[in-house]
């Protein structure tokens, strides 16, 4: 009953937050020439122009597709491996340095290998997104596994509850806060990383467009692409949050009271 009102209020808050960001940007833009900080209006105009020319949707579609492939792959493999490896201390001790390794090698160093292995298509950017998000899913899943509610697991095992049911009703809800936190972080990370990877290694996508605009000192266009990516980030984050709040664990946030 009250749901919709609360939701409306949330939307208002979010919009006022975005208004604040735009306001700050506007103020900053007064102090710099457009080639350094274009104003929001110039940026939106440029974005509109890109949209009308069709470039916006074209590059965006490519980038979104790549990011989602990389993100989904990391989500699934990172979480699963994290859960599995995190349950065996020895295995974890063995794999932890490897994942830290993935995380610490600068993307620049991965790009070349990615290009050689996968060419100039979508391979390299997807690969870099995976490298950037996989460790986050992995480590969060490990933390989740380590904080599984042992007393509930014992209960389920004693009652010989079927394995699948255990996973669905016990493991997943317990892991969810950790996975959900990783998703929030990685959604943001994916967009950022894909742009950087495309910028360095690809001929298409938002990153490549951004790189071109940058080389041509089209700062307004750089900002327009950035704005597109930020909006994408905010929207996906919001959609996910909406979904998260609707999960059982999200709804029963009170379960934290540890009963």
């Amino acid at each position, binding site marked *: 009953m009250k749901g919709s009102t609360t939701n409306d209020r949330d939307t208002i808050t979010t919009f006022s937050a975005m208004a604040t960001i735009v306001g700050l940007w506007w103020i900053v833009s007064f102090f710099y020439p457009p080639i350094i900080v274009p104003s929001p209006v110039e940026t939106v105009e440029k974005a509109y122009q890109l949209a009308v020319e069709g470039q916006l949707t074209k590059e965006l579609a490519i980038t979104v597709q790549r990011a989602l492939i990389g993100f989904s792959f990391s989500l699934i493999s990172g979480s699963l491996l994290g859960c599995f490896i995190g349950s065996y201390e020895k295995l974890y001790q063995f794999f932890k340095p490897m994942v830290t390794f993935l995380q610490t090698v600068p993307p620049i160093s991965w790009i070349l290998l990615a290009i050689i292995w996968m060419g100039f298509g979508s391979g390299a950017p997807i690969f870099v997104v995976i490298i950037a998000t996989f460790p986050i899913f992995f480590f969060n899943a490990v933390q989740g596994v380590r904080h599984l509610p042992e*007393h509930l697991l014992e209960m389920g095992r004693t*009652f*010989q509850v079927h394995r*699948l*049911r255990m996973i669905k009703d*016990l493991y997943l809800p317990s892991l969810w806060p950790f996975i959900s936190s990783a998703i929030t972080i990685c959604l943001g990370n994916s967009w950022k990383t894909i742009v950087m990877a495309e910028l360095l290694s690809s001929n298409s996508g938002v990153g490549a467009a951004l790189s071109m605009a940058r080389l041509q000192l089209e700062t307004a266009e750089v900002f327009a692409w950035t704005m597109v990516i930020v909006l994408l980030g905010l929207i996906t984050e919001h959609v996910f949050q909406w979904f998260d709040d609707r999960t059982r*664990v999200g709804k029963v946030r*009170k379960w934290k*009271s540890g009963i």
Partner: protein
Amino acid sequence: MEIRNLTFAYGDKDIFKDFSIYIPEGEITCILGSSGVGKTTLLQMIAGIKKPQFGEIIKNSNQVSYIFQEPRLLPWKTVIENVEFVLLDKMDKGKRRVIAKEMLERVGLGDSLHRFPHELSGGMRQRVSIARAFVIKPEILLLDEPLQGLDVIKRQEIQDLLVSLWETYKPTVVYITHDVEDALAVAYQIIVFAGQPVNVLCHTFIDQPIKERSSSPTYMDAFRTHLMLQMKKSTEIPFDKMMQMKMMQQKMKMA
């Protein structure tokens, strides 16, 4: 069910050492004993949650149901879903719901089916745990202080429910309680634990059928006095004396 030469220690604290008892199948066995003696530990070993370091537990079935000392409910599931959680997946959904609902009504939670654990009072949570344990028809039923947090009337109702379930399909019941009355009301065999490592301080069989007990108070009074005495002893006897007693018991067995 037989427990043979069981040895179990937490760190260097021996809880059980070469411990053996026999728990008759299809009967209700009550375990009494002071707090921290090792009752829950034994139950968890029977359930398979803890592994003994030595010895074995011979069970005729692995179909176990357990009322834990804490309710252990899934916080993200409603009352009825918590009960359904332990019902077999093979059972179809509608049937599961009907059975779970029926059992919840029997423990007096018919009006709280769709509430979450954090919306319940302590006693209500305990009753969900009871309903969950009773809803499957297990061959071994382990109860760790099932009546805690319940008022006299509810206690009586749940006890009646336990007896009626037991009479219908005769599971092996191991029932931990602190209340001598509870034990006297339903037990076929009462075991009192004491000491560290655990010793069986007394082992009493009550041959009176459950139904007839309330009508023969004097007969039960004898058991009551005996048990109270034993309980008193259990907290007073120091460890070395316990060992002496054990020796003597063994000698007597030999003889």
